[in-house]
C-alpha cells in the first residue's frame, strides 16, 4: 500500500453509517417511505463492495488469464441482465445480441487500453484489465439501456410511418433509418456531455480515487483522459452493434415490423 494513504478501519466504516442516518431522517421527515430501500441499499453496498474487494485481491494474487477472463464474462452477464431489467421489452428477444456485442466490443476496447495505450505486460494484467473493463461496462451499460429503450419506443410510436416506407419499397433499414439514428444519439450524448463537464463541474471518480490513493494528480488525469475517451468509444461501438442486431430482430424475414403498436 502507498505509505501516504490513510487507512480506513472497520470502525471508521461504521462511523460512515451516520450519512445514511441523515438520508433516513430526510425520508422520515418527508414521508418518502424510502427507509427500507436505504437499508437494503446500504447493506448491499457493504456486502457487494467487500466481496468485490476480496475477489479482486484473490484475482490479483492468482494472476491467471483464465480467471481474469472469467471475471470479465461474469461482469458482462450481470451488465446484460441489468439492461434487460431496465428496458422491459417483451416482444423482441434482445438479450442474446446485447450480451454478445458487449462481450466482443468491450473486450476490444479494454484490450486496446491495457495492451496498447497503458502498455501493461501482459495485456490482461488483472490490476489494469479488471478495473478498466469494469468502468467500460458500467458506463456503456446505461447508454445501451437508453438506446434500446428509445429504439423500441420510437418504432412503436412511429409504426405507421415505418409501414408507409415499407409499403413504398423500403427495406427494414431504410424504413427505420431515422429512428435508428435518434436511438444512437440518445445513447451517445450522455458520454459526450460528460467530456464537456469533466474537471470543471466534477472530479471524476477515477481521478478522485487515484489522488486519494496517493497518486500524482497529473498522472491521475492522464488515466482519466484515457478512460473518458475509452468510454465514448465503447459507448459508440457497443450501441451501434447492439442497435443494428436488435433492430433486425424487430422486423421479420419479410421486413415487417413485429412490434405491436403503442397503447
Amino acid at each position, binding site marked *: 500500500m502507498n505509505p501516504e494513504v490513510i487507512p480506513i478501519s472497520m470502525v471508521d466504516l461504521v462511523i460512515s453509517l451516520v450519512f445514511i442516518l441523515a438520508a433516513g431522517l430526510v425520508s422520515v421527515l418527508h414521508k418518502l417511505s424510502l427507509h427500507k430501500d436505504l437499508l437494503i441499499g446500504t447493506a448491499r453496498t457493504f456486502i457487494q463492495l467487500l466481496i468485490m474487494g476480496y475477489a479482486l485481491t484473490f484475482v490479483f494474487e492468482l494472476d491467471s488469464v483464465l480467471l481474469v477472463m472469467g471475471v470479465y464474462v461474469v461482469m458482462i452477464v450481470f451488465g446484460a441482465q441489468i439492461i434487460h431489467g431496465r428496458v422491459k421489452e417483451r416482444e423482441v428477444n434482445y438479450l442474446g445480441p446485447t450480451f454478445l456485442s458487449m462481450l466482443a466490443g468491450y473486450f476490444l476496447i479494454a484490450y486496446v487500453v491495457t495492451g496498447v495505450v497503458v502498455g501493461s505486460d501482459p495485456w490482461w494484467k488483472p490490476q489494469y484489465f479488471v478495473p478498466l473493463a469494469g468502468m467500460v461496462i458500467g458506463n456503456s451499460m446505461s447508454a445501451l439501456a437508453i438506446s434500446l429503450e428509445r429504439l423500441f419506443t420510437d418504432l412503436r410510436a412511429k409504426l*405507421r410511418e415505418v409501414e408507409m416506407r*415499407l*409499403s*413504398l*419499397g*423500403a*427495406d427494414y433499414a*431504410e424504413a427505420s433509418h431515422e429512428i435508428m439514428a435518434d436511438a444512437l444519439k440518445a445513447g451517445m450524448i450522455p458520454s459526450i456531455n460528460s467530456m464537456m463537464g469533466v474537471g470543471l463541474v466534477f472530479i471524476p471518480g477515477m481521478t478522485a480515487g487515484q489522488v486519494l490513493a496517493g497518486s500524482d494528480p497529473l498522472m491521475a488525469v492522464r488515466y482519466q483522459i484515457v478512460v473518458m475517451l475509452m468510454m465514448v468509444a465503447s459507448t459508440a461501438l457497443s450501441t451501434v452493434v447492439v442497435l443494428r442486431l436488435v433492430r433486425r430482430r424487430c422486423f421479420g424475414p419479410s*421486413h*415487417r415490423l413485429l412490434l405491436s403498436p403503442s397503447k
Partner: protein
Amino acid sequence: MSCAASENTRDAKPILTLEAVSFAYAQGKPVFSDVYLDVCNGSYMMVKGPSGAGKSTLLRLMNRLEEPNSGRILYHGRELVEYEPARLRRWVSYIQQTPVLVNGSVRDNLLLPFGFTANKDLERPTDDELQELLAAFLLDNVALDQNGLTCSVGQSQRLCLIRALLLKPEIMLLDEPTSALDKESRQEVEAMTEKVNTEHGVTVVMISHTEYAPACENFSEIEVRGGSVTVKEQTP
C-alpha cells in the same frame, strides 16, 4: 373463383391468389380460416364487412405486412416468399387508412420512395410530370415546394395515391382511404381510385364502409365476415 372477363378485358386472369389461407394473431382466435381468393388483373375489388372482421389483415397479407399461419399466397404463380419483400411491395402497393406524409416539401414526399434501393431502377419523375399528376388528381392548388404537412387530410390522401402510383404498381391495396374524410373529399378520393384503375390500369383492392360502387369494368365486392371471405360478382 375465376376472373370474369368483360368485353374490354378478355384477357383477365388471376395475378394474386390466396389458397387455403388461414391467419390468427399470436394467442388469438383465428381471423380467417381456409380462404380462397383470386385478384384479377385490371379488376376493382371492394372489400366490405363489419369492423374487426379482418379486412385490413386480408390486404396486409397480400403484400406481406402480415404472414399467413397456413396456406399459400401466389403472385403471378409464384409464392410471395419467393419475391424480395421490398420489390413485392413496390408492385403490390399498400396505402394506409390515415395518410402518412413526412416533414418536407410535397416534392420530397412524392419522391421519397425513389431513395430506396429497391426503386433505384425507376426513373425519377420531373417537376413537370409531378405537376401534371397533381393537376390530374385535382391538386392544382398544391405547390411542390409547399410543406406536405400543411395539406388537408383529403389532399394528403391523394398525394399518397400519387406517390404510390409513381412506382408503377400492378396492384394497389387501399385500406379504407376515405374513412377520415368529409363527403366532398371522400368522393374526390373515390373518383381518383377509379382513375387509377381505368386510366392507369392498376388493379385496385379497396376497403370501404360507404355505399360507393365504382363504374369500372370488372368490379366485384368481397365480403369479409365471421372468418370467411366471399366474393359477390356484380352484374352489369
